[in-house]
């Protein structure tokens, strides 16, 4: 959430995620197909509902 397509200004990763999503409409064999992206988040990342300043 907040980074569905990667980090700010990371055009390569944004494009890769969008390409992967779009390619599924041609390659998916069944509905509900999930694909894990090979990209790793470069920094520590912890999802906090409501954002970093919320009660978490």
């Amino acid at each position, binding site marked *: 959430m*907040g980074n569905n397509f990667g980090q*700010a*200004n990371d055009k390569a990763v944004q494009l890769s995620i969008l390409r992967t999503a779009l390619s599924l*409409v041609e390659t998916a064999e069944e509905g*509900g197909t999930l694909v894990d992206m090979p990209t790793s988040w470069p920094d520590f990342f912890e999802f906090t509902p409501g954002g970093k300043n919320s009660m*978490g």
Partner: protein
Amino acid sequence: MISIRYVDALNKYYGAMGNPPYRWSINETAPLHRLTKPLRECAVALLTSGGVSQTVVPAFNPDARNDHRLDEIPPDTPSNDFQVHDSYYDHTDAETDINCIFPLDRLRELAILGEIGTIAPRLWSGFMGRIYNRSKIRDESGPAFVDALEADNVDVLVAAPT
């Protein structure tokens, strides 16, 4: 790879506020609709639910509940002409670069490269905030959205929830 357990985290977060357990929608099936033509010939639309609006229109209510507002976004809107108002996720990065959640620049690049046919005449932002009245989505706002996509001859919708 470590997966983020969004549902577990949200259950814990809202449960700590004293809310009753959220009744998540569970879809047992997800019908597959195959394209009738190659992606390079398809019209593609984007939808974000991240409280994204053009700067020339009123902002979304960041604390909204059951907000079925749906904005039409002209596909040639500059990517620095957006504001983000949603108190339910961290949109720090999106404020710097809207493509983090609404990759319209990247979509334009794919169109230029010929990897998609065209960008749809309208992109979309809406259904933000927490929508509890799911029957309204199913019976009213969802079908109305489908009608709009069909009117635009959209072949593929990339839905990016936040």
